[in-house]
Protein backbone atom coordinates (compact mmCIF):
# COMPACT_ATOMS: atom_id res chain seq x y z
CA UNK A 1 0.00 0.00 0.00
CA UNK A 2 1.22 3.48 -0.82
CA UNK A 3 -0.68 6.48 0.41
CA UNK A 4 -0.58 10.07 -0.79
CA UNK A 5 -1.78 12.66 1.73
CA UNK A 6 -2.60 16.12 0.39
CA UNK A 7 -1.39 18.64 2.98
CA UNK A 8 -3.65 21.38 4.31
CA UNK A 9 -1.73 24.64 4.73
CA UNK A 10 -1.69 28.37 4.06
CA UNK A 11 1.79 28.51 2.44
CA UNK A 12 3.42 29.36 5.76
CA UNK A 13 2.14 26.80 8.28
CA UNK A 14 1.02 23.19 8.08
CA UNK A 15 -2.55 22.97 9.36
CA UNK A 16 -3.57 20.53 12.06
CA UNK A 17 -6.02 18.74 9.76
CA UNK A 18 -3.01 17.21 8.00
CA UNK A 19 -2.03 15.43 11.21
CA UNK A 20 -5.48 13.84 11.56
CA UNK A 21 -5.35 12.75 7.92
CA UNK A 22 -1.91 11.16 8.40
CA UNK A 23 -3.40 9.28 11.37
CA UNK A 24 -6.05 7.82 9.04
CA UNK A 25 -3.32 6.96 6.53
CA UNK A 26 -1.49 5.08 9.28
CA UNK A 27 -4.67 3.14 10.02
CA UNK A 28 -4.71 1.98 6.39
CA UNK A 29 -1.00 1.10 6.65
CA UNK A 30 1.77 1.52 4.12
CA UNK A 31 4.24 4.12 2.93
CA UNK A 32 2.97 7.65 3.50
CA UNK A 33 3.92 10.48 1.15
CA UNK A 34 2.71 14.03 1.82
CA UNK A 35 2.14 16.42 -1.07
CA UNK A 36 2.60 20.11 -0.26
CA UNK A 37 1.28 22.17 -3.18
CA UNK A 38 1.48 25.92 -2.77
CA UNK A 39 3.62 28.97 -3.47
CA UNK A 40 6.66 29.91 -1.40
CA UNK A 41 5.73 27.02 0.84
CA UNK A 42 9.16 25.61 1.71
CA UNK A 43 8.48 26.03 5.44
CA UNK A 44 5.37 23.89 5.12
CA UNK A 45 7.28 21.15 3.30
CA UNK A 46 9.88 21.16 6.07
CA UNK A 47 7.20 20.93 8.73
CA UNK A 48 5.55 18.05 6.86
CA UNK A 49 8.88 16.20 6.75
CA UNK A 50 8.94 16.18 10.56
CA UNK A 51 5.47 14.67 10.93
CA UNK A 52 5.51 11.26 12.57
CA UNK A 53 5.01 8.39 10.12
CA UNK A 54 5.71 10.31 6.91
CA UNK A 55 8.36 8.75 4.65
CA UNK A 56 8.49 11.31 1.86
CA UNK A 57 7.36 14.87 1.14
CA UNK A 58 6.69 16.11 -2.39
CA UNK A 59 6.86 19.89 -2.66
CA UNK A 60 5.14 21.54 -5.63
CA UNK A 61 6.04 25.19 -5.25
CA UNK A 62 4.54 27.40 -7.94
CA UNK A 63 2.36 30.50 -8.25
CA UNK A 64 -0.33 28.34 -9.91
CA UNK A 65 -0.89 26.63 -6.54
CA UNK A 66 -0.84 29.71 -4.31
CA UNK A 67 -4.57 29.91 -3.62
CA UNK A 68 -5.39 26.21 -3.82
CA UNK A 69 -7.56 26.73 -6.91
CA UNK A 70 -9.30 23.38 -7.40
CA UNK A 71 -8.76 23.24 -11.18
CA UNK A 72 -4.97 23.49 -10.84
CA UNK A 73 -4.39 21.45 -7.69
CA UNK A 74 -6.64 18.60 -8.82
CA UNK A 75 -4.67 18.18 -12.06
CA UNK A 76 -1.46 17.97 -10.04
CA UNK A 77 -2.85 15.54 -7.45
CA UNK A 78 -4.34 13.30 -10.14
CA UNK A 79 -1.04 13.28 -12.05
CA UNK A 80 1.04 12.37 -9.00
CA UNK A 81 -1.66 10.27 -7.36
CA UNK A 82 -2.03 7.67 -10.09
CA UNK A 83 1.07 5.92 -8.70
CA UNK A 84 -0.59 5.44 -5.30
CA UNK A 85 -3.20 3.03 -3.91
CA UNK A 86 -4.88 5.69 -1.74
CA UNK A 87 -5.14 9.48 -1.94
CA UNK A 88 -6.27 11.19 1.26
CA UNK A 89 -7.12 14.72 2.30
CA UNK A 90 -8.85 16.22 5.30
CA UNK A 91 -12.59 16.91 4.92
CA UNK A 92 -11.93 20.64 5.15
CA UNK A 93 -13.48 23.16 2.75
CA UNK A 94 -10.29 22.79 0.74
CA UNK A 95 -10.27 18.99 0.71
CA UNK A 96 -13.95 18.89 -0.21
CA UNK A 97 -13.32 21.35 -3.01
CA UNK A 98 -10.39 19.51 -4.61
CA UNK A 99 -10.76 15.78 -4.00
CA UNK A 100 -13.95 14.98 -5.98
CA UNK A 101 -12.23 16.60 -8.96
CA UNK A 102 -9.22 14.35 -8.42
CA UNK A 103 -11.45 11.29 -8.24
CA UNK A 104 -13.29 12.22 -11.44
CA UNK A 105 -10.00 12.83 -13.29
CA UNK A 106 -8.90 9.34 -12.25
CA UNK A 107 -12.34 7.90 -13.10
CA UNK A 108 -12.85 6.51 -9.58
CA UNK A 109 -15.39 7.14 -6.83
CA UNK A 110 -14.64 9.28 -3.80
CA UNK A 111 -15.36 8.09 -0.29
CA UNK A 112 -16.28 11.19 1.71
CA UNK A 113 -15.56 11.91 5.38
CA UNK A 114 -14.48 8.50 6.61
CA UNK A 115 -14.54 7.98 10.37
CA UNK A 116 -12.99 4.51 10.46
CA UNK A 117 -10.76 2.23 8.39
CA UNK A 118 -12.03 -1.36 8.42
CA UNK A 119 -9.52 -2.62 5.84
CA UNK A 120 -7.59 -1.22 2.88
CA UNK A 121 -10.79 -1.10 0.81
CA UNK A 122 -13.54 -0.79 3.43
CA UNK A 123 -14.41 2.30 5.44
CA UNK A 124 -17.13 3.67 7.69
CA UNK A 125 -18.73 7.03 7.07
CA UNK A 126 -21.74 8.88 8.44
CA UNK A 127 -24.75 9.52 6.20
CA UNK A 128 -28.08 11.27 6.88
CA UNK A 129 -26.47 13.89 9.15
CA UNK A 130 -24.80 11.16 11.18
CA UNK A 131 -28.06 9.37 12.02
CA UNK A 132 -26.78 6.34 10.12
CA UNK A 133 -23.25 4.95 9.80
CA UNK A 134 -22.56 3.19 6.49
CA UNK A 135 -19.79 0.67 5.87
CA UNK A 136 -18.57 1.17 2.30
CA UNK A 137 -16.38 -1.15 0.21
CA UNK A 138 -14.59 0.13 -2.88
CA UNK A 139 -13.51 -1.90 -5.91
CA UNK A 140 -11.63 1.02 -7.47
CA UNK A 141 -7.89 0.62 -8.07
CA UNK A 142 -7.23 3.98 -6.40
CA UNK A 143 -9.19 4.99 -3.35
CA UNK A 144 -9.78 8.74 -3.14
CA UNK A 145 -10.82 9.61 0.39
CA UNK A 146 -11.57 12.60 2.61
CA UNK A 147 -11.09 12.12 6.34
CA UNK A 148 -13.25 13.55 9.10
CA UNK A 149 -10.61 15.03 11.41
CA UNK A 150 -12.56 14.56 14.62
CA UNK A 151 -12.51 10.78 14.14
CA UNK A 152 -8.71 10.60 14.38
CA UNK A 153 -6.31 11.84 17.03
CA UNK A 154 -3.56 13.82 15.32
CA UNK A 155 -0.16 12.16 14.91
CA UNK A 156 2.84 13.92 16.45
CA UNK A 157 3.99 16.97 14.47
CA UNK A 158 7.62 16.25 15.40
CA UNK A 159 9.81 13.18 15.38
CA UNK A 160 9.82 12.20 11.71
CA UNK A 161 12.62 12.82 9.25
CA UNK A 162 11.23 12.39 5.76
CA UNK A 163 13.07 13.41 2.62
CA UNK A 164 11.75 16.40 0.67
CA UNK A 165 11.64 16.17 -3.12
CA UNK A 166 10.52 19.01 -5.30
CA UNK A 167 7.96 18.44 -8.03
CA UNK A 168 8.66 20.16 -11.32
CA UNK A 169 5.20 19.69 -12.82
CA UNK A 170 3.20 22.91 -13.19
CA UNK A 171 -0.52 22.51 -13.79
CA UNK A 172 -2.29 25.72 -14.61
CA UNK A 173 -5.73 25.09 -16.08
CA UNK A 174 -6.29 28.80 -16.60
CA UNK A 175 -9.99 28.43 -15.80
CA UNK A 176 -10.28 30.47 -12.62
CA UNK A 177 -8.43 33.13 -10.68
CA UNK A 178 -8.26 34.33 -7.10
CA UNK A 179 -9.72 37.76 -6.33
CA UNK A 180 -9.75 38.18 -2.57
CA UNK A 181 -10.12 36.56 0.79
CA UNK A 182 -11.76 37.85 3.96
CA UNK A 183 -10.63 35.63 6.78
CA UNK A 184 -11.87 36.04 10.30
CA UNK A 185 -9.11 37.16 12.64
CA UNK A 186 -9.29 35.86 16.18
CA UNK A 187 -6.94 35.24 19.10
CA UNK A 188 -9.07 32.31 20.16
CA UNK A 189 -8.32 28.73 19.07
CA UNK A 190 -9.71 27.41 15.77
CA UNK A 191 -13.07 25.71 16.08
CA UNK A 192 -11.96 22.40 14.61
CA UNK A 193 -8.99 22.03 16.95
CA UNK A 194 -10.25 23.71 20.15
CA UNK A 195 -10.44 21.65 23.35
CA UNK A 196 -13.38 23.71 24.57
CA UNK A 197 -16.14 25.29 22.49
CA UNK A 198 -18.95 27.54 23.59
CA UNK A 199 -21.65 27.98 20.96
CA UNK A 200 -24.74 30.12 20.71
CA UNK A 201 -28.02 29.65 18.87
CA UNK A 202 -31.16 31.53 18.03
CA UNK A 203 -31.74 32.08 21.75
CA UNK A 204 -28.87 34.58 21.77
CA UNK A 205 -31.28 37.00 20.03
CA UNK A 206 -28.61 39.31 18.56
CA UNK A 207 -24.93 39.63 17.76
CA UNK A 208 -24.33 41.85 20.78
CA UNK A 209 -25.08 39.04 23.20
CA UNK A 210 -22.39 36.83 21.62
CA UNK A 211 -19.97 39.05 23.57
CA UNK A 212 -21.11 37.21 26.70
CA UNK A 213 -19.96 33.95 25.11
CA UNK A 214 -16.66 35.53 24.12
CA UNK A 215 -16.01 36.60 27.71
CA UNK A 216 -16.62 33.06 28.95
CA UNK A 217 -14.57 31.67 26.05
CA UNK A 218 -11.60 33.82 27.04
CA UNK A 219 -11.71 32.46 30.59
CA UNK A 220 -11.79 28.86 29.33
CA UNK A 221 -9.40 29.26 26.39
CA UNK A 222 -12.34 28.23 24.24
CA UNK A 223 -13.42 28.81 20.65
CA UNK A 224 -16.82 30.37 19.92
CA UNK A 225 -19.24 28.58 17.61
CA UNK A 226 -22.83 29.02 16.48
CA UNK A 227 -25.80 27.10 15.17
CA UNK A 228 -27.07 27.63 11.64
CA UNK A 229 -30.02 29.56 13.06
CA UNK A 230 -27.66 32.12 14.62
CA UNK A 231 -25.62 32.42 11.41
CA UNK A 232 -28.70 32.71 9.19
CA UNK A 233 -30.11 35.38 11.48
CA UNK A 234 -26.90 37.35 10.90
CA UNK A 235 -25.73 37.30 14.55
CA UNK A 236 -22.30 35.94 13.56
CA UNK A 237 -20.30 35.01 10.45
CA UNK A 238 -20.54 31.74 8.51
CA UNK A 239 -17.13 30.42 9.53
CA UNK A 240 -18.51 29.91 13.06
CA UNK A 241 -21.26 27.50 12.00
CA UNK A 242 -21.19 24.05 13.58
CA UNK A 243 -23.37 21.37 12.02
CA UNK A 244 -24.06 18.94 9.18
CA UNK A 245 -23.04 21.47 6.55
CA UNK A 246 -20.80 23.65 8.71
CA UNK A 247 -17.87 22.52 10.78
CA UNK A 248 -17.74 19.13 12.46
CA UNK A 249 -16.23 19.42 15.93
CA UNK A 250 -15.49 17.06 18.82
CA UNK A 251 -13.90 19.03 21.68
CA UNK A 252 -13.46 17.80 25.26
CA UNK A 253 -16.18 20.22 26.32
CA UNK A 254 -18.99 21.71 24.21
CA UNK A 255 -21.26 24.27 25.83
CA UNK A 256 -24.46 24.87 23.84
CA UNK A 257 -26.15 28.11 24.82
CA UNK A 258 -29.63 28.94 23.56
CA UNK A 259 -29.40 26.11 21.02
CA UNK A 260 -32.49 23.91 20.74
CA UNK A 261 -30.67 20.98 19.14
CA UNK A 262 -31.90 20.44 15.56
CA UNK A 263 -30.68 17.21 13.89
CA UNK A 264 -28.44 19.28 11.62
CA UNK A 265 -26.67 20.95 14.56
CA UNK A 266 -26.26 17.73 16.53
CA UNK A 267 -24.60 16.21 13.46
CA UNK A 268 -21.74 18.65 13.93
CA UNK A 269 -21.04 18.28 17.66
CA UNK A 270 -22.50 15.12 19.15
CA UNK A 271 -19.13 13.38 19.29
CA UNK A 272 -17.89 15.95 21.81
CA UNK A 273 -16.67 14.26 25.01
CA UNK A 274 -18.74 16.32 27.43
CA UNK A 275 -21.78 18.32 26.35
CA UNK A 276 -23.38 21.05 28.42
CA UNK A 277 -26.69 22.63 27.43
CA UNK A 278 -28.02 25.88 28.77
CA UNK A 279 -31.53 26.62 27.58
CA UNK A 280 -34.66 28.04 29.13
CA UNK A 281 -36.87 25.48 27.39
CA UNK A 282 -36.62 22.33 29.47
CA UNK A 283 -38.03 20.25 26.58
CA UNK A 284 -35.35 21.36 24.10
CA UNK A 285 -33.95 18.28 22.28
CA UNK A 286 -30.39 19.36 23.10
CA UNK A 287 -30.95 18.12 26.68
CA UNK A 288 -31.42 14.56 25.38
CA UNK A 289 -27.76 14.35 24.38
CA UNK A 290 -26.27 16.59 27.07
CA UNK A 291 -24.22 15.29 29.97
CA UNK A 292 -25.14 18.35 32.02
CA UNK A 293 -28.22 20.42 31.43
CA UNK A 294 -29.08 23.74 33.02
CA UNK A 295 -32.60 25.04 32.51
CA UNK A 296 -32.06 28.77 32.82
CA UNK A 297 -32.33 32.10 31.07
CA UNK A 298 -28.99 32.45 29.32
CA UNK A 299 -28.96 36.21 29.90
CA UNK A 300 -28.74 35.49 33.63
CA UNK A 301 -26.66 32.32 33.45
CA UNK A 302 -23.87 33.59 31.19
CA UNK A 303 -22.77 36.57 33.32
CA UNK A 304 -22.93 34.31 36.36
CA UNK A 305 -20.80 31.69 34.63
CA UNK A 306 -18.22 34.25 33.63
CA UNK A 307 -18.03 35.58 37.17
CA UNK A 308 -17.63 32.20 38.80
CA UNK A 309 -14.98 30.82 36.47
Amino acid at each position, binding site marked *: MSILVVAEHDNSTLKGATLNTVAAAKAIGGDITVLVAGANCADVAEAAAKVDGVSKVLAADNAAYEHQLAENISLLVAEIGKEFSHILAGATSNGKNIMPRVAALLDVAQISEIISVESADTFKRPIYAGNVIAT*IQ*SSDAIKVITVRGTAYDPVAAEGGSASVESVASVQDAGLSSFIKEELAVSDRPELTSAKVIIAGGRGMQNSESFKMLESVADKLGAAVGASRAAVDAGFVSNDMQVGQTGKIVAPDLYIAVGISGAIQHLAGMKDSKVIVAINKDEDAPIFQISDYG*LVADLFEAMPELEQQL
Partner: protein
Amino acid sequence: MKILVAVKRVADANVKVRAKADGSDVDLANVKMAINPFCEIAVEEAVRLKEKGVATEIIAVSVGDKSVQEQIRTALALGADRGIQVDAPKDTQPLAISKLLKAIVEKESVDLVIVGKQSIDGDNNQTGQMLAALAGMSQATFASELIFEDGKASVTREVDGGLQTISLNLPAVVTADLRLNEPRYASLPNIMKAKKKPLDVLTPDDLGVSVAPTLITVKVEPPAERQAGVKVESVEQLIDKLKNEAKVI
Protein backbone atom coordinates in the same frame (compact mmCIF):
# COMPACT_ATOMS: atom_id res chain seq x y z
CA MET B 1 -27.04 32.11 -21.09
CA LYS B 2 -28.37 28.59 -20.66
CA ILE B 3 -28.40 27.22 -17.11
CA LEU B 4 -28.66 23.63 -15.98
CA VAL B 5 -29.71 22.87 -12.42
CA ALA B 6 -29.66 19.38 -11.01
CA VAL B 7 -32.13 18.45 -8.31
CA LYS B 8 -32.24 15.43 -6.02
CA ARG B 9 -35.14 13.68 -4.32
CA VAL B 10 -34.25 13.08 -0.66
CA ALA B 11 -35.93 12.36 2.67
CA ASP B 12 -37.32 15.60 4.10
CA ALA B 13 -34.81 17.53 6.24
CA ASN B 14 -37.01 17.24 9.33
CA VAL B 15 -37.16 13.44 9.24
CA LYS B 16 -34.74 11.51 11.44
CA VAL B 17 -33.84 8.64 9.12
CA ARG B 18 -32.85 5.34 10.76
CA ALA B 19 -31.04 2.18 9.70
CA LYS B 20 -33.21 -0.92 9.21
CA ALA B 21 -32.83 -3.49 11.99
CA ASP B 22 -31.16 -5.99 9.64
CA GLY B 23 -28.56 -3.40 8.60
CA SER B 24 -29.32 -3.83 4.90
CA ASP B 25 -30.38 -0.26 4.16
CA VAL B 26 -31.94 2.85 5.63
CA ASP B 27 -35.65 2.71 6.34
CA LEU B 28 -37.47 5.10 4.01
CA ALA B 29 -40.89 3.43 4.16
CA ASN B 30 -43.59 6.09 4.54
CA VAL B 31 -40.97 8.84 4.85
CA LYS B 32 -41.90 12.21 3.40
CA MET B 33 -39.69 12.99 0.38
CA ALA B 34 -38.69 16.45 -0.82
CA ILE B 35 -36.29 18.33 -3.03
CA ASN B 36 -32.83 18.49 -1.40
CA PRO B 37 -32.65 21.92 0.33
CA PHE B 38 -29.37 22.88 -1.38
CA CYS B 39 -30.83 21.97 -4.78
CA GLU B 40 -33.77 24.24 -4.07
CA ILE B 41 -31.34 27.09 -3.44
CA ALA B 42 -29.63 26.26 -6.76
CA VAL B 43 -32.96 26.46 -8.60
CA GLU B 44 -33.81 29.76 -6.91
CA GLU B 45 -30.47 31.27 -7.96
CA ALA B 46 -31.04 30.21 -11.56
CA VAL B 47 -34.53 31.71 -11.53
CA ARG B 48 -33.18 35.00 -10.14
CA LEU B 49 -30.58 35.09 -12.92
CA LYS B 50 -33.35 34.65 -15.45
CA GLU B 51 -35.41 37.40 -13.83
CA LYS B 52 -32.35 39.69 -14.05
CA GLY B 53 -32.06 38.91 -17.75
CA VAL B 54 -28.73 37.12 -17.34
CA ALA B 55 -30.14 33.69 -18.12
CA THR B 56 -32.34 32.78 -21.06
CA GLU B 57 -33.33 29.22 -20.26
CA ILE B 58 -33.24 26.94 -17.21
CA ILE B 59 -33.19 23.16 -17.56
CA ALA B 60 -33.88 21.11 -14.42
CA VAL B 61 -32.41 17.60 -14.40
CA SER B 62 -32.85 14.76 -11.95
CA VAL B 63 -31.41 11.26 -12.01
CA GLY B 64 -33.55 8.45 -10.63
CA ASP B 65 -36.71 6.45 -11.15
CA LYS B 66 -40.06 7.97 -12.13
CA SER B 67 -40.66 9.35 -8.64
CA VAL B 68 -38.01 12.07 -9.19
CA GLN B 69 -40.38 13.71 -11.68
CA GLU B 70 -42.10 15.14 -8.60
CA GLN B 71 -38.94 17.10 -7.70
CA ILE B 72 -38.45 18.17 -11.32
CA ARG B 73 -42.02 19.54 -11.24
CA THR B 74 -41.12 21.41 -8.04
CA ALA B 75 -38.20 23.04 -9.89
CA LEU B 76 -40.50 23.86 -12.81
CA ALA B 77 -43.01 25.43 -10.42
CA LEU B 78 -40.20 27.59 -8.99
CA GLY B 79 -39.41 28.87 -12.48
CA ALA B 80 -37.31 26.36 -14.45
CA ASP B 81 -38.40 26.13 -18.10
CA ARG B 82 -38.16 22.42 -18.84
CA GLY B 83 -37.16 19.19 -17.20
CA ILE B 84 -35.13 16.09 -17.98
CA GLN B 85 -35.41 12.87 -15.99
CA VAL B 86 -32.55 10.45 -16.51
CA ASP B 87 -34.14 7.10 -15.76
CA ALA B 88 -31.51 5.34 -13.65
CA PRO B 89 -31.49 3.38 -10.39
CA LYS B 90 -32.20 5.69 -7.45
CA ASP B 91 -28.91 4.84 -5.73
CA THR B 92 -26.80 5.88 -8.74
CA GLN B 93 -23.48 7.17 -7.37
CA PRO B 94 -22.02 10.69 -7.75
CA LEU B 95 -19.41 9.77 -10.39
CA ALA B 96 -22.07 8.21 -12.65
CA ILE B 97 -24.45 11.12 -12.04
CA SER B 98 -21.64 13.51 -13.01
CA LYS B 99 -21.08 11.60 -16.26
CA LEU B 100 -24.79 11.77 -17.07
CA LEU B 101 -24.86 15.50 -16.34
CA LYS B 102 -21.73 16.06 -18.42
CA ALA B 103 -23.43 14.37 -21.40
CA ILE B 104 -26.45 16.67 -21.01
CA VAL B 105 -24.27 19.78 -20.55
CA GLU B 106 -22.55 19.00 -23.85
CA LYS B 107 -25.73 18.05 -25.67
CA GLU B 108 -27.50 21.23 -24.57
CA SER B 109 -24.46 23.60 -24.77
CA VAL B 110 -25.00 24.77 -21.21
CA ASP B 111 -23.06 27.86 -20.03
CA LEU B 112 -23.60 27.53 -16.29
CA VAL B 113 -24.45 24.63 -14.00
CA ILE B 114 -25.77 25.33 -10.52
CA VAL B 115 -26.15 22.42 -8.11
CA GLY B 116 -26.48 22.09 -4.34
CA LYS B 117 -23.21 21.68 -2.47
CA GLN B 118 -24.32 18.37 -1.01
CA SER B 119 -27.38 16.23 -0.62
CA ILE B 120 -28.61 15.71 2.90
CA ASP B 121 -28.99 11.94 2.47
CA GLY B 122 -25.60 10.73 1.24
CA ASP B 123 -23.73 13.82 2.50
CA ASN B 124 -21.18 13.17 -0.26
CA ASN B 125 -20.49 16.70 -1.50
CA GLN B 126 -19.03 15.47 -4.81
CA THR B 127 -21.27 15.82 -7.86
CA GLY B 128 -20.62 19.46 -8.81
CA GLN B 129 -16.85 19.11 -8.50
CA MET B 130 -16.81 15.81 -10.44
CA LEU B 131 -18.94 17.26 -13.22
CA ALA B 132 -16.62 20.28 -13.49
CA ALA B 133 -13.56 18.02 -13.74
CA LEU B 134 -15.10 15.70 -16.35
CA ALA B 135 -16.30 18.59 -18.51
CA GLY B 136 -13.06 20.59 -18.04
CA MET B 137 -15.04 23.45 -16.49
CA SER B 138 -14.14 25.92 -13.76
CA GLN B 139 -15.82 25.52 -10.40
CA ALA B 140 -16.84 27.46 -7.32
CA THR B 141 -18.09 25.34 -4.44
CA PHE B 142 -19.99 26.58 -1.35
CA ALA B 143 -21.16 29.76 -3.08
CA SER B 144 -22.81 32.52 -1.07
CA GLU B 145 -22.80 35.18 -3.79
CA LEU B 146 -22.76 35.01 -7.58
CA ILE B 147 -22.17 38.02 -9.84
CA PHE B 148 -21.72 38.12 -13.63
CA GLU B 149 -19.57 40.73 -15.31
CA ASP B 150 -17.53 40.87 -18.51
CA GLY B 151 -18.37 37.31 -19.45
CA LYS B 152 -17.05 35.91 -16.18
CA ALA B 153 -18.61 34.82 -12.94
CA SER B 154 -17.37 36.31 -9.68
CA VAL B 155 -18.25 33.94 -6.87
CA THR B 156 -17.90 34.39 -3.12
CA ARG B 157 -17.30 31.07 -1.38
CA GLU B 158 -17.79 30.08 2.24
CA VAL B 159 -14.47 28.55 3.29
CA ASP B 160 -13.21 27.33 6.67
CA GLY B 161 -11.60 30.61 7.69
CA GLY B 162 -14.24 32.98 6.29
CA LEU B 163 -14.97 34.06 2.72
CA GLN B 164 -13.03 33.73 -0.53
CA THR B 165 -13.89 35.37 -3.85
CA ILE B 166 -12.77 33.85 -7.14
CA SER B 167 -13.38 34.60 -10.80
CA LEU B 168 -14.50 31.84 -13.16
CA ASN B 169 -14.34 31.51 -16.93
CA LEU B 170 -17.56 30.19 -18.42
CA PRO B 171 -18.83 27.55 -18.73
CA ALA B 172 -18.66 26.95 -14.99
CA VAL B 173 -20.11 24.85 -12.21
CA VAL B 174 -21.29 26.59 -9.05
CA THR B 175 -22.41 24.69 -5.94
CA ALA B 176 -24.87 26.47 -3.68
CA ASP B 177 -24.37 26.99 0.04
CA LEU B 178 -27.13 27.92 2.47
CA ARG B 179 -26.71 31.65 2.37
CA LEU B 180 -26.73 32.07 -1.42
CA ASN B 181 -30.42 32.99 -1.25
CA GLU B 182 -33.71 32.14 0.40
CA PRO B 183 -35.89 30.12 -1.98
CA ARG B 184 -39.39 31.38 -2.72
CA TYR B 185 -42.53 29.35 -2.27
CA ALA B 186 -44.11 28.15 -5.49
CA SER B 187 -47.49 29.83 -6.06
CA LEU B 188 -50.52 27.73 -6.89
CA PRO B 189 -50.82 29.12 -10.45
CA ASN B 190 -47.14 28.33 -11.00
CA ILE B 191 -47.61 24.80 -9.69
CA MET B 192 -50.47 24.36 -12.19
CA LYS B 193 -48.38 25.85 -15.02
CA ALA B 194 -45.47 23.53 -14.14
CA LYS B 195 -47.61 20.53 -14.99
CA LYS B 196 -47.72 21.65 -18.61
CA LYS B 197 -44.01 22.40 -18.98
CA PRO B 198 -42.03 19.87 -21.08
CA LEU B 199 -40.34 17.00 -19.24
CA ASP B 200 -38.23 14.58 -21.28
CA VAL B 201 -37.09 11.17 -20.14
CA LEU B 202 -33.66 9.90 -21.16
CA THR B 203 -31.82 6.70 -20.28
CA PRO B 204 -28.11 6.31 -19.44
CA ASP B 205 -27.82 4.42 -22.75
CA ASP B 206 -29.18 7.44 -24.62
CA LEU B 207 -26.35 9.43 -23.07
CA GLY B 208 -23.74 6.71 -23.57
CA VAL B 209 -22.95 6.39 -19.85
CA SER B 210 -22.50 3.29 -17.69
CA VAL B 211 -23.96 3.79 -14.23
CA ALA B 212 -22.51 0.61 -12.69
CA PRO B 213 -21.34 1.44 -9.14
CA THR B 214 -17.82 0.81 -7.82
CA LEU B 215 -18.77 1.33 -4.19
CA ILE B 216 -20.99 -1.10 -2.34
CA THR B 217 -22.67 -0.49 0.97
CA VAL B 218 -21.76 -3.50 3.11
CA LYS B 219 -24.08 -2.50 5.94
CA VAL B 220 -25.69 0.40 7.71
CA GLU B 221 -26.04 0.80 11.46
CA PRO B 222 -27.13 3.39 14.00
CA PRO B 223 -24.39 5.57 15.52
CA ALA B 224 -23.40 5.11 19.16
CA GLU B 225 -26.22 6.72 21.10
CA ARG B 226 -25.55 9.33 23.72
CA GLN B 227 -27.50 9.03 26.92
CA ALA B 228 -29.10 12.08 28.44
CA GLY B 229 -27.15 13.08 31.53
CA VAL B 230 -28.29 15.02 34.55
CA LYS B 231 -29.89 18.40 35.03
CA VAL B 232 -28.06 20.74 37.34
CA GLU B 233 -29.81 23.34 39.46
CA SER B 234 -27.40 26.25 39.21
CA VAL B 235 -24.35 27.69 37.50
CA GLU B 236 -22.39 26.93 40.67
CA GLN B 237 -23.34 23.27 40.53
CA LEU B 238 -22.52 23.14 36.82
CA ILE B 239 -19.00 24.47 37.40
CA ASP B 240 -18.52 22.02 40.25
CA LYS B 241 -19.54 19.07 38.03
CA LEU B 242 -17.28 20.20 35.17
CA LYS B 243 -14.32 20.61 37.52
CA ASN B 244 -14.70 17.65 39.82
CA GLU B 245 -16.77 15.04 37.98
CA ALA B 246 -16.06 15.50 34.26
CA LYS B 247 -12.67 17.15 34.95
CA VAL B 248 -12.78 19.15 31.72
CA ILE B 249 -12.09 22.64 33.10
